């Protein structure tokens, strides 16, 4: 099969069958690309995920674009991107049409009234999980709390918070290195 067509098919499948957001896509991409086709080695894949996590934007989009690029250049990146995005584009447009029609129905409104507090719980659990896995250094605690307070109570724009925390991290690491004399 043509490599471009193959990329499209793989990422379309990834885009269409992973429910629950971008993070759910990563193991599927790994299975499709590393295990089934061996287009990329396990180690390369792990490095690639780290880099994609450090780039802005949706993780699944970064990952599939990067894999497409590595396998077949800029065109490959483009095709992998289209493959990943197309299913959710179509699906969400259908839902949006549907949502407008059914949002007047009383049961549907009550359904969403029940779902909204559950979303809060889902996010809360993720925060707890992430917090548990993070080292409790003073720096981490201060930055995490500062970001939280800046957005929740001071209404500071999230972009400002992100830029500030990134800069703070850079300065912190640099000073610590100077202090311990490591380069």
């Amino acid at each position, binding site marked *: 099969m043509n490599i471009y067509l193959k990329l499209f098919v793989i990422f379309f499948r990834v885009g269409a069958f992973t429910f629950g957001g971008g993070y759910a896509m990563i193991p599927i991409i790994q299975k499709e690309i590393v295990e089934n086709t061996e287009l990329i080695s396990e180690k390369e894949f792990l490095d690639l995920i780290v880099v994609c996590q450090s780039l*802005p934007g949706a993780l699944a989009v970064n990952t599939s674009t990067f894999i497409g*690029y590595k396998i077949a250049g*800029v065109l490959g990146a483009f095709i992998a991107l289209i493959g990943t995005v197309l*299913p959710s584009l179509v699906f*969400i447009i259908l839902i*949006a049409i549907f949502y407008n029609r059914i949002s007047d129905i009383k049961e549907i409104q009550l*359904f*969403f009234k029940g779902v909204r507090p559950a979303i809060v719980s889902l996010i809360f659990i993720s925060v707890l999980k992430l917090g548990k896995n993070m080292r409790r250094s003073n720096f981490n605690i201060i930055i995490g709390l500062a970001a939280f307070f800046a957005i929740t109570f001071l209404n500071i724009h999230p972009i400002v918070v*992100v830029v500030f925390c990134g800069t703070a991290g850079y300065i912190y690491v640099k000073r610590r290195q100077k202090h311990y004399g490591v380069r």
Partner: protein
Amino acid sequence: MVYVKLFLAFLKIGAFSFGGGYAMLPLIEQEIVYINNWLSAYEFVDIIAISQMSPGPIAINAATFVGFKHLDVLGAVVATIGVVLVSFLLVTSLAQILLKYYKSPVVNGVFTGLRPAVIGLMAAACVSLFRTSVEDFKSLIICIAVLVIIHKTRTHPILIILLSGIMGIVVYTI
């Protein structure tokens, strides 16, 4: 022009959200609920719920939904291009270099700061959504019940959503 505005808002979201997933929520919320009033706070929570039950990353889903709601299919496409454009450009231009240098002190330093910030961002999203979603005693009960269920049983999020929706119908009709 409306298309340009839509495009730029989602370009910003794509360019400045780190950590993916829930960590992107405060920025998306800021841009589409508070700055541009494209969605109500309720619709925003519903979009997160819909994203949990449908394929694709939440940023893409939000872009498509908002774009379609205001400017039809072309709007959906424009917003989606906006949200992925920076990713595409960065990956195709910078990624190879980053693959070599991601262990460099500069990149490492910036991420030492961003990693804990991501938790703060998610916590902020949680509080903001709590203010929107938990407005009476019944919704508080659902919120706590779901917390207990997730903690005890590790039920899949899609099931959680269906379950909580049914709880909503039951609790608010009796």
